[in-house]
């Protein structure tokens, strides 16, 4: 199940005609065609990212890096996160350069808090505009944390106010009690004295009454003051409670919004996964746009989630980190359990695997290195891309090369094999760099004439293959093509090869693969005078 995308055909030149040129002219993305023009002049390696710096990505990265939680994480994890978001090295470096000094941001932490609160309110408006990436779904967490911190700060004031109020209450209560004590006891005393001394001295009444009244008034005043205090503090507490309630409501609303956003993001992602590649291209662009617009929060939360995962690195093999964990063999689990208990499996031996002579000279090679099959193809100036351009008719060579390539891959062989071989040999003779080109030619040719591809494959194999393969045309086509090659290849200089092949196939298998192949190669190589073991 492969999905194919419309990769743009190389606007710049295809593989250069001269095979000696190792570097390839770069091919740019569609939107940077103008740059392609400029880069054509000085050919650079195609393995370099030649996109210009995307300002939006850099700004997102700056927002991410400015987050206080991100600042506490190691630099390598910040870089790794941004790389996984698709930023190039230059963009990441630019973002690191732009992030302000840590000393400046510490002092304005409070303003940062309020700023983020403001951002919190503005972002929900922008978020619904574009679907966001999977890793942005955890956006809510630090956002909630930030707002929580803010409300906590406010509520802390409220709490301290409440404590103050309680303290005041206590003090006023105690004061009231003391005042009452001071008021009641003397009053009682005086009243008792008055009662006792009423008969004794009527004249003292006038003296004690005003003092009593004064004291009562004073006590009443104190009581009133205390009551007023109590009323005030209780009012303050009520107000603070109301404020707390309001903040809590706000928080709940925000959380609800974020939950809704997460759900919508999840839906969007599911949609994205279900779409074809064409849809994916536009969706990915939308995602990038979403990254651009929604700002740092998602990336912040992203970073947080990722940091938690990264910090849990263990020394176990990668097999243990899987979303749907493949069922491990039972004995594997036993060994893991044993090791976690601290036991050592019993079958381990002490082995000394150090080199007995660290300066042992390396043996001389007995066999010369062989050219790879793809290097042989390269010498013919053909590539898979050129395969599509079958109209090239620059003389016999290129036509034959195209045919040769087509032959190898999936085409009809119209050119006789022996003609192709001659072409290859001349090509190689003119090439300086391919010392072992001959062997490469033979290595390439050999697969065509290999013993296990008999001219007439037994019927059962064909039937099996046809039944098992979903597309019966292709492989049988291949077989036909190779069979054609075999039939076509009847030049005198390889007749002995064919005879050997037919002999081998008749005997039901190659007796000596190595010997056979080397003999085959020797016979082929004889005429070009190259010795090979």
């Amino acid at each position, binding site marked *: *199940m*492969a999905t194919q*995308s419309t990769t*743009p055909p190389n606007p710049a030149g295809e593989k250069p005609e001269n095979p000696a040129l*190792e570097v390839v002219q770069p091919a740019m993305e569609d939107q940077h065609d103008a740059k392609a023009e400029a880069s054509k002049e000085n050919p650079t*390696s*195609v*393995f370099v*990212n030649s996109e210009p710096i995307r300002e939006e990505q850099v700004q997102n990265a700056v927002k991410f890096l400015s987050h206080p939680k991100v600042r506490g994480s190691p630099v390598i994890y910040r870089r*790794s996160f941004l*790389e*996984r978001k698709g930023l190039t090295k230059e963009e990441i470096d630019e973002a690191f350069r732009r992030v302000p000094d840590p000393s400046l941001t510490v002092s304005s932490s409070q303003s940062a808090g309020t700023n983020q609160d403001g951002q919190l309110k503005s972002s929900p408006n922008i978020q619904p505009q574009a679907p966001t990436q999977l890793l942005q779904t955890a956006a809510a967490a630090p956002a909630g944390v930030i707002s929580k911190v803010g409300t906590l700060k406010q509520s802390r004031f409220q709490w301290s106010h409440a404590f103050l109020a309680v303290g005041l209450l206590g003090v006023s209560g105690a004061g009231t009690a003391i005042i009452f004590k001071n008021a009641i006891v003397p009053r009682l005393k005086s009243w008792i004295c008055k009662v006792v001394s009423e008969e004794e001295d009527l004249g003292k009444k006038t003296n004690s009454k005003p003092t009593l009244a004064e004291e009562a008034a004073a006590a009443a005043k104190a009581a009133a003051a205390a009551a007023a205090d109590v009323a005030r503090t209780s009012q303050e507490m009520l107000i603070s409670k109301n404020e707390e309630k309001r903040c809590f409501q706000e928080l709940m609303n925000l959380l609800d919004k974020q939950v809704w956003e997460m759900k919508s993001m999840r839906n969007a992602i599911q949609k994205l996964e279900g779409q074809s590649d064409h849809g994916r291209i536009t969706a990915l662009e939308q995602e990038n746009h979403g990254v651009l617009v929604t700002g740092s929060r998602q990336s912040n939360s992203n970073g947080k989630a990722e940091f938690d995962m*990264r910090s849990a*690195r263990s020394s176990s*093999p*990668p*097999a243990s*980190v*899987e*979303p749907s964990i*493949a069922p491990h*063999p039972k*004995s594997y689990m036993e*060994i893991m359990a044993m*090791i976690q208990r601290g036991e*050592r*499996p019993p*079958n*381990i031996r002490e*082995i*000394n695997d*150090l*080199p*007995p*002579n*660290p300066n042992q000279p*390396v*043996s*001389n*090679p*007995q*066999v010369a*290195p*062989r050219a*790879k099959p*793809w*290097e042989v193809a390269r010498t013919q100036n053909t590539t*898979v*891309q050129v395969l599509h351009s079958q109209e090239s008719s620059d003389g016999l060579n290129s036509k034959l090369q195209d045919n040769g390539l087509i032959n190898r891959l999936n085409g009809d062989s119209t050119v006789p094999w022996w003609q192709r071989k001659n072409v290859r040999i001349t090509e190689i003779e003119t090439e300086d760099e391919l010392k072992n080109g001959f062997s490469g030619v033979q290595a390439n040719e050999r*697969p065509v004439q290999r013993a*296990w*591809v008999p001219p007439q494959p037994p019927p059962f*194999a064909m039937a*099996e*293959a046809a039944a*098992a*393969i979903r597309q019966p045309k292709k*492989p049988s086509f291949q077989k036909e093509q190779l069979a054609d090659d075999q039939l076509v290849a009847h030049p005198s200089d390889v007749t002995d090869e064919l005879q050997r092949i037919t002999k081998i196939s008749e005997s039901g298998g190659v*007796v000596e*693969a190595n010997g056979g192949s080397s003999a085959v190669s020797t016979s082929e190589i004889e005429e070009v005078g190259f010795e090979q073991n």
Partner: protein
Amino acid sequence: MPVFKTPFNGYAVKFSPFYENRLAVATAQNFGILGNGRLHVLDLNPSGPITEFASFDTADGVYDLAWSESHDSLLVAAVADGSIKLYDLALPPSSNPIRSLHEHTREAHSADYNPVRRDSFLSSSWDDTVKLWTIDRPTSVRTFKEHAYCVYSAVWNPRHADVFASASGDCTVRIWDVREPGSTMILPAHELEILSCDWNKYDDCIIATASVDKSIKVWDVRSFRVPVAVLNGHGYAVRKVKFSPHRGNLMASCSYDMTICLWDYMVEDALIGRYDHHTEFAVGVDMSVLVEGLLASTGWDELVYVCNWPYGIGVICSKHEGHAFKWNKTLD
């Protein structure tokens, strides 16, 4: 089908670039968790079973190996204790290994030899680095440290002598040029760890990545924002992917779902073959450079299978009236 039973759990298999019938297998005891390792060098016999040419014991599991492209008898092994060991088959076993290069601080997970210059090789490790070595130097030539997590694979470009790609658990693939100080491209290829990558031998700008997310993605480095193809079909994480040396669009992959799959990414229905002969995680797969269609695989079931695709009858298993896609598990 020719089968070889290894005493330990298989981790990697590679064909020799010099001898058609030779291959090497890297194995580790106790699934590579903790234990010894062994490196086997096997010879294929068309008329009989697979025989062992040599084997080397190591103190820790061998996670990967690479054949030298310059010396026919030289092998590079990536060992779980972080060392890179060199073995010379022309020397007696008592003289082996000839080198033990210990620089990685964590397990060495992969080794790859430069097929163009033939003078250097790469090792990648769980210590987040890739190191470049040559045979003649006792220390690494360069260390590439940019990944944020284990580097599971480092593969040379088949045509550009100085370019290689690395796949890492930090979910990115990086393309490097040894002439440059740092990586030249970063592909955020998957959302989960990337366990393997390989270059298309016939189009040097195409790279395939295999990930824990069960998919294989094929990328063109010239327009790397969107993959050329996404290949789904494996039931679990894809452990290794290998492009065919003979056909540009063909690739083989092995997975924890115990199957080896063959893909043609230019076709709408990309899955063109599947082998399910392994009974445990299929962890290593390789296609021979010298013999078209020769395919070897190994897994945690301690078996090495060699088969020939798609013809069914081959140099190796011609005696068996074998089926193209169904293989017997018993040794013949």
